[in-house]
Every structure is written in structure tokens, then in C-alpha cells.
């Protein structure tokens, strides 16, 4: 074999290979082409193997030419392969623009307060607390008297409570917009014997000068458990579980002494929010007078109660800067939750 013969066969292989390559428009034929020309037993490889039979001078020239061809064919192969892939993916005749937006549906959502209330109720429901709900207009008897809030307590003032009729009528007292959902405590206990485990969500109302952190209408989720043998330790266990559910297991929680007329001892549960303690829940052991008021024997039964504001928790969680957004019904706010 001479070098010119080798070069002839190189150029004929090149012509044939390139022609055949352009016809290899699918992956199968492309692979067959690769095996025939570039494979271990392929035609180009055959030429390279035979270089050893040439004279050294010729061997160099023919070798260079063969290697050049090898490079060209490899590049051509890659180009054809990419072309095939593009062609395969664009199924040209019935192609659509997959980047156009999908068909619109109206995005409905629950109000963020409802979402937060449901999350809280779910946590307590699973611990055996049943949801009870009451009216937004209440008797003074249930909102204050039965809850051991003294007759002269400032909370009953016109500056704090929205009244429908301040005039006391018999044991029911006046009529007011409930300031808390706690009236469901005595209302429930009057109707049943222990054990009691309830959680009561709903709207509450207080006289407030409205600003970014104060609203005269807000929601509360309030709970009560009464039975023989319920203790402060159970209160802590319940509220730790609640905090874990709402804020995650890593959140630091602290319990400190606080005062509310319807509990004794009283508790404020705060959580660590970016290095700052934020009070999120008031609680305590049910005051013995509250139990006596509904005919429970405080020497036999103990219990605990707690109350939490869903708007406040939502504000903390989402960084909502103004509580007035909640009842302003602006879709630019509501649609985000």
C-alpha cells in the first residue's frame, strides 16, 4: 500500500461519510453510522491501523491526514446529533408554544384569620379539645360576672367595652359586644359535667383607638380543660404542644407569671422571636370562683384556660406590619395568603 493510495481512500471515505451522515436523521441510523466509520472496527480506524505498513516518510503524511479526517468526522457527528435532538423535540407539524401561561382558574383563598384559626383549632382538636362557638353579643353575666371579673373592674367601663345596654337587668346584667370568647367557658360548664375540653374561636370587640397594632375588632381562640387531677404541668404540656405545632419544634418558649382575674396562678407564654420575647398567649389554672360559679366543686376539680389572638400570631409569622389590613378586605392583601 502506498501513501497516495491511502490518501485516496481517506478522501473517498470522507466524501461518503459526510454524505451518509447527512442522511442519518434519527438516533438509530446515526449510531449505525458511528459504528461503520468511527467504531473500533470501523473504516477510519482500519486506515489508521494500516499506517504501520507504510514507509516512515509516508506514514507521517498519511497519519496527519487520517487524524485530520477523524477530527472532522467527530465534529460533523456532534453537529448532526444535536440537529437530530432538536428535530426530535419540536415535532414540527403540531407544535405548540409551551411557554404560554396555563389556562386560568380563579384563585380562591380563605381569609388569613380563618386559616390561622383553623391551624390553631386543629392543634387543640387533636388533643381532645372540642370546638364550641357562641354569639358575638353577650350578657354581662357570661362575659364578666361568671369569669370572676369584679363588678367594678375597669374592663367593664365604657372606655373598654362596647355596650348595647349598660343597664344591669337581673342576674344577666347588661348586654355587650363580647370582649373575649371566654363566655363559652361558663356557658359550656353550665350545660355539662366534667371532663370538659373546649376551644372557642370567634370575633371579639373592645374600645381601642385604632392604629397599626390596635384594632377594635379581632379574633380570639380560647380554650378550657376541667377534670379531676388536671395540673399546671398539664397546662404547660398542652401549650408546649400547641407552640410546637404553630411555631415549630425549635422555637424557644417561656412561661412567666402574669395576672388575669379568671385564673390563679396566671401565666403568660412568650416565644423567642429573633432574640426578643413576644407574648402570644395568656393562660392559667382556672380560678376556683369560676368553677364555683357553675356549680363545680373546686376541691374536686381543677382546670386550665388559655387565650391566643390569631391576628397577632399571623402578623408575627408573616411580618404583617398593620393589623388594620385584616378587615379592610383588600384583595391585594388577602390574595397573598
Amino acid at each position, binding site marked *: 500500500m502506498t501513501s497516495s493510495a491511502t490518501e485516496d481512500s481517506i478522501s473517498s471515505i470522507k466524501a461518503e461519510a459526510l454524505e451518509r451522515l447527512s442522511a442519518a436523521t434519527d438516533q438509530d441510523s446515526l449510531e449505525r453510522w458511528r459504528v461503520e466509520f468511527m467504531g473500533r472496527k470501523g473504516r477510519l480506524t482500519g486506515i489508521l491501523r494500516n499506517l504501520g505498513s507504510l514507509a516512515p516518510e509516508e506514514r507521517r503524511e498519511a497519519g496527519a491526514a487520517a487524524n485530520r479526517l477523524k477530527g472532522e468526522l467527530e465534529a460533523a457527528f456532534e453537529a448532526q446529533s444535536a440537529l437530530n435532538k432538536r428535530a426530535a423535540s419540536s415535532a414540527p407539524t403540531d407544535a405548540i408554544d409551551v411557554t404560554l401561561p396555563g389556562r386560568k382558574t380563579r384563585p380562591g383563598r380563605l381569609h388569613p384569620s380563618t386559616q390561622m384559626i383553623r391551624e390553631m383549632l386543629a392543634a387543640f382538636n387533636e388533643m381532645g379539645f*372540642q370546638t364550641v362557638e357562641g354569639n358575638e353579643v353577650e*350578657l354581662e353575666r357570661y362575659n364578666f360576672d361568671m369569669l370572676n371579673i369584679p363588678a*367594678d373592674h375597669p374592663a367593664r367601663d365604657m372606655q373598654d367595652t362596647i355596650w348595647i345596654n349598660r343597664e344591669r337587668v337581673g342576674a344577666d346584667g347588661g348586654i355587650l359586644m363580647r370582649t373575649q370568647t371566654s363566655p363559652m367557658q361558663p356557658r359550656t360548664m353550665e350545660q355539662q359535667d366534667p371532663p370538659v*375540653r373546649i376551644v372557642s374561636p370567634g370575633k371579639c370587640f373592645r374600645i381601642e383607638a385604632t392604629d397599626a397594632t390596635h384594632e377594635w375588632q379581632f379574633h380570639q381562640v380560647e380554650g378550657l380543660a376541667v377534670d379531676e387531677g388536671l*395540673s399546671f404541668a398539664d397546662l404547660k404540656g398542652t401549650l408546649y404542644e400547641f407552640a410546637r405545632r404553630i411555631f415549630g419544634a425549635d422555637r424557644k418558649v417561656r412561661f412567666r*407569671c402574669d395576672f388575669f382575674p379568671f385564673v*390563679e396562678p396566671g401565666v403568660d407564654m412568650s416565644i423567642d422571636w429573633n432574640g426578643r420575647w413576644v407574648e402570644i398567649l395568656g393562660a392559667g389554672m382556672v380560678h376556683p370562683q369560676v368553677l364555683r360559679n357553675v356549680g363545680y366543686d373546686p*376541691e374536686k376539680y381543677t382546670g386550665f384556660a388559655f387565650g391566643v389572638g390569631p391576628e397577632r400570631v399571623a402578623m408575627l409569622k408573616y411580618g404583617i406590619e398593620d393589623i388594620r389590613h385584616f378587615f379592610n378586605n383588600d384583595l391585594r392583601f388577602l390574595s397573598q395568603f
Partner: protein
Amino acid sequence: MKVPLSWLKDYVDITVSPEELAHRLTMAGTEVEKIERTADWDNVVVGHVHAVNPHPNADRLRLVTVFNGSEEVEVVCGAPNVAEGQTIAYASIGAVLRDAYSEDPEATKRLKKSKIRGVESQGMVCSEKELGLSDEHEGILELETEATPGTPLGEVLGDIVLEAELTPNRPDCLGIVGIAREVAVLTGQELRLPPVDYAESSPGVSSLASVRIDDPDLCPRYTGTVIRGVKIAPSPGWLADRIRAIGERPINNIVDITNYVMFELGQPLHAFDYDRVKNHEVIVRRAAAGEKITTLDDQERKLDADMLLIADPEKGIGLAGVMGGANSEIDDSTTNVFLESATFNGPNNRRTSSTLGLRSQATLRFEKGLRSGLSEIALRRATKLIAEIAGGEVATGIIDEHPGKDSEQQSVSLSREKLSRVLGTELHEEQVTGTLEALGFSVTETADGWSTNIPYWRPDVTLPEDLIEEIARIIGYDEIPVTPPAGRVPTWQPRPETAVRDRIADALVRAGMQEIISYSATNEDDENKIPLAEGMLDHVRLQNAVSADHAVLRRTLRESVLSAVERNLRTWRGPVALFEIGHVFGSAGEGLPEEKIMVTGVFAGPSVEPSWTDPARQADFYDAKGAVEVVLSELHAEGQFAAAVDPALVAGRTAEITVPLAGGARIGVVGELSASARESFDIDSPVVMFELELDKLVSVAAAVGPADIYSPIVRYQDSERDLALLIDRSVPAADVVAIARKNRLVTSASVFDVFEGKGLPEGKKSLAVRIVYQSPNKTLTADEISKSESGILRALEHQLGATLRA
């Protein structure tokens, strides 16, 4: 309540950092909101005045040689009171001081090197105003300190003040001693009570003055004494400083002492000019209705018969526990003082102060109901300070009228069993007695626990539970174990209102509606924007609404949702599809108003977001009806919609909804908002709405049985046939469907196309109905289906005049 640590240290050693102290107090119930460092000045030090010489060029200025700790400097000074030998506050060049001549009280200026009338001044001798301590600018501030010259002023005048947020049950902590007692217990230190001893002179007090309590129900104890020959003067510096430190203004030594003791021990006191009390006879009585008194603030107050007055035989001389009378006020001419320290009824005191709009530091304490033991201690403490500071002779003995002595609770017991039952843990005997004794309770062991004497400063402790809290809060709530709630779980009592409401809300959300929540109160103007249905109850009016915008309780949710539409159409380009589930109210005369829950939804604007797939369409009647169908379908029920009239909705585009399954009860209404109602809400585009009553939907849910939800899948093939009918325009589609469904082989029938107009006879419409035939027993033959179809067609023709369209 401001708690300056410099003052607190009089009664207890502070062994922890201010931050740790704040933390421990907070955990135990006295929340420290802020730790404030009162004073911190750069380049202001203690200086000594070594010499004062006249200014060569100005009569009213002087050249003052000040030793600043390292050298003598010369300062030009205009203050008349500067004198050799004084210890003063010296500000060197670069100090930033209040600008005493600026209108703006916050304005500051930086001290620069300057020549005053030709003489260079190397700094300044400061007034209180320049240091930001007060408005005093008549002269320079003279320091009463042993500190050596050069000591930074902040170390002499500066203090750390804890700002404590107190709970209303702890009037003892409205005194620095009360806070000190907490600190002592929480840090294991001794409490040092302020001394109350003083020398007495004859005669006995009873020969100088008398007290008579006419209304012991409002004044369980009244103690008093007389100090003769006092010298009224400004308070000494330390006293004035402390009065200022807690945010009050010094007045004179006697008044400042009564204030000081109030802030020290928590007991308000009052000093009368002894010589202005007629016959030196003090009478504690209810005011006569309409009786008047001019209080210390020069306001004439008209009293009612439930207000307690301190009087002499002629006139009122003070409003008991609220404010003294102007006619017996201590002034510069006073030489003899009658000092009062009494216990007044808390609720009555609060009522008087709120009726008169006259809140004071005294009422803040009295209204919480102080124990009578405190009054005598405070009387003796104030007497001691008066004798020391204002001089004078203290009469022998004290006046002590104590009609309420036997009615006050003296002790409270706690059983071991109760303590561990409530806390859920066993405590050591020493933990219990040690804690209570440290708090000042004297403890005696009983057969089953402990009996304690209630200390005179703790009116809040009356029950065993109160003692439990004392023990728990001092030991620390952290020390109490955490257990999952023990005991029985109550029997589940389902509450259908809650369950049905949540299901409906979820269904409406799935149907693409946004839940909103509005205020429960509105106003008549807004309510009148839409005509209300007849027979609506009167509205419930609030006596003290937060604003005129929220004066009455809403009777429907319509105004709420339409106001939301109005607002959102201005700011929101997408669909406005809103619903609210909320309470509405109606007056029921006496007693609680009627209250029920409505489900009200509204659609306005485009039906969907503008999109390339579907052309924009305005919301219409069928969007609202579709939402109602979603609600009913969620409950596995079907509604009937019949044309109806509603004052707010367009006639002919309004339907009332009944549910045959639930006895045909009317559950609500759906329709298009009338143009006039739209106009009053300033809405241009069509609005459709629905309104459902929750309790009706609860009845629907209750009426749905298992058979209404599930029927077995039929194994035999069904067949679908379409009918194209020509029928009078006025015939409701529902009637056509109802007839088709009566056939026993028909499993469903529904209208899938409606056409009116071109190519049809006048007054007619074309309805396309798809009917599905199926038998539970076999596959139907074409003949059987055709027979059924013919029967349906005959019925349609006979009953509704429908014909098959050619």
C-alpha cells in the same frame, strides 16, 4: 412604674446585673419593659469652683476658676448663684448640651471655644436645663457629691431606671420597697425596711386634733398626727432628685415627703395645713349630693352622695383618697401640719375618680384596695421624714380610728394535697415555707399543710390558690414539669354548624372565591345604600361605638360584601369574587338580640383573569348561581331556583332557592344587583350576588342520608340521546328537565344549549337536552329507549307545548 436602682439599693443589695434583675422580675410577674440609663454626658465632669472674679468688660458676667481634676481653667459665667467652694458640673469644649435659649426643648448645641465680651471661656458651668435635667435655668446646678473633680457627671447624676409594667393585683409593687422585696426574694438578699422611729413631744395628739369616721364602709382605717412648727422650704437635693427620678415634680418639703413615702411604701398620704382645719376636727363622711369642693388643681368639683369627703365641721377639706382641697393646702405660710394616712374603699375610690375624671397617683393605689395595716407604717415613716427635713415637734401618739379592724381577712391556709394537685409536682417542705416566709408571710404548719398570716402589703392574697401562685412564681414556672394533658377526653359532641360552615367555605374557595371578613358593626347611611327586605328586625344600636362609622350592628352581609366590591374594583384588575360567612343581628326587644350566620357571596368584574385562552367575560347571574350549586353539591343536595322578587335585585334576574330534600325550605336568594343599588355603591359594572342562611344549610346537611350520597355503580351500559326542542321562551328549562327525569329509565337530563332569535319563530327558543337512559337490570335495547323518548316527548308537548325541532 419607674424603679431607679439608686433608690432600690436603699432597701436591698443588688448582686446581679440590671439585665439579670429585669429578667428575674419579669419571670416572677413584674414585667420590666425597659432598662433606661438616665444620664450620660460626654465631656462633662465634676468640678470645684476655686475662685470667682468679676468680668473686666461686663457687670453681669463673672470669671470662674474651675478645677476639673487635672488643671484649673477659666470659664465665663452669667449665673448669679455661682460661688467659690461649690461643686459643679463642668462641661469642656466639645460637650453636647441642651440649647437653653432654643424654642425647641430637644435642641442641642456643641460647646465651642469662644470669647465672651473679650475673654476666652474654656468651657461652661452647667445649669439643670443645659444638662437636660429640668427647665431650671436661673442658675447653675450645685452638686451634692463627694466625688472628686474629674469624675464623669454620669457617674454622679446618672442612674439605671427599670420601667416596670405592673399587674393590677399588686399595689405593693407601686412602691419601691415592694419591688425591693421581690428583688430580695428572687436574689436571696436581705430586705432593709426604711426606719420609722422619731422623737415625740408633748402634748398628746388627741388634745390637738380629732378624727371621726361617719362612713366606716368607705374608710376602714384613718391614722393621723400633728407636727407643729415646721419650716416649709424646697426639698433637699436628694429628695428632689428622687421625686424627679420617678417622673414627678418637686413642690415643697412637706408635699414632697408625702409623695416620697407613697412611692416608697405604696400608701398615699395627705398633709393639711393644721390651722386651716376648723376646730382641728376631721370628719370622714359621704358628701351631700351637689356639695362642692375646690381641689388642689383649682377646679371646683360638684360631688354626689357616694363620694367620700374629708371635712371639718364647716366644709370639705379634701376629696378622700383622690385629691386634697385648696382651702387646706400646705403653702409657704404653713407652720403646723395635720398628716393623714388612711385606708379607703377601693371600688368607691375608683368610682369617684372616674366620675370626676380625676385620676391621680393616689387613686391608682387606693382603687386596688389597700390593707389597713399599711396606713400606720406609712404615717410613721412620713412623720419621721418631716421631723428630720422640715423640723417641728411631733405630738405624742397617733390618731387611729380603725372601724374595719375585724372585717379584714388575716390568714389563709393551704393543704399539701392541694399544692401538689394544682401544680402537678411535689415540693419540698422548705421550698414552701422558705418562699412564703421570704415574701413576708408568717407560716405555721398545720395537720395537712400550712396556715399563713397575710402581710399588710398584700391585699391580693386571699385564697390557697394565691399562695400556690406565690410559691410557683418564686420557685420559677420553669421548675414545674411538663406533662401531656392527663385525664379523660370528653365524649365527642359534634357541632354541625361549625362543620357545615367549614365545608361551605372550602367549597366556595375551590370555586375560586376569596373569603373576606368585615366589621360586625356599620352605620345607617351605609346600611341604607341598599333597600332591605321587608320584615327585617330593627337594628341593634351600640351605646358607645368606637366611631360613628360603626354605630349599629349589621342586619345583613350585603353591604359588607358590596363595600368590598366597590373598594376592590378600584384597585384590582382581576375577577372580584368574594364571600363572607358572618353574624348578622336584629333587635329582639328585651334581652339578647337575634343573631344568625349568613353566607353571602358576590361576583363583579371579569369572570376570570384576562387570558389568551378564554375571552374576557363579565361576571353574570350564572356565576352566582354556579357558586350556590357548588355549595349544595358539597352537601350532596340539589336546589330549585324559582323566579322571585328582592328589593335590591333586578326583577326577572332574581331567584329564590329551595331544597326539596330538606322539605322545600327556602335557603336563600341569588340575583343581579339593581342599578340603583349599584349606583349608591358607585359601581359601574354588573354585580351578582347570593345570600344563604347557614342554619338552613345545616338542616339541608342533616336531611341528606347515605342513599342521597351513594348508589351502586350499574353494570349495564347506559345510552345518551339528545333532544332539540322548540318551546315558548317563557317556559323555564327546569320544567323540561323535570319532565324528562320523571321517566323511570332516565338517570340524568340536562340542558346543554339554548338558542333564541334568528331562524326561530317569534316568542320561541330552542333547547338542546341531553338525556341518559339506563336500567339497573339489563342493557336497554334501542326500542326500549325510543319508547321512553317518545313518552317524554309526548309529555313535553302536552304539558309545555314543546315540539321536536325540525
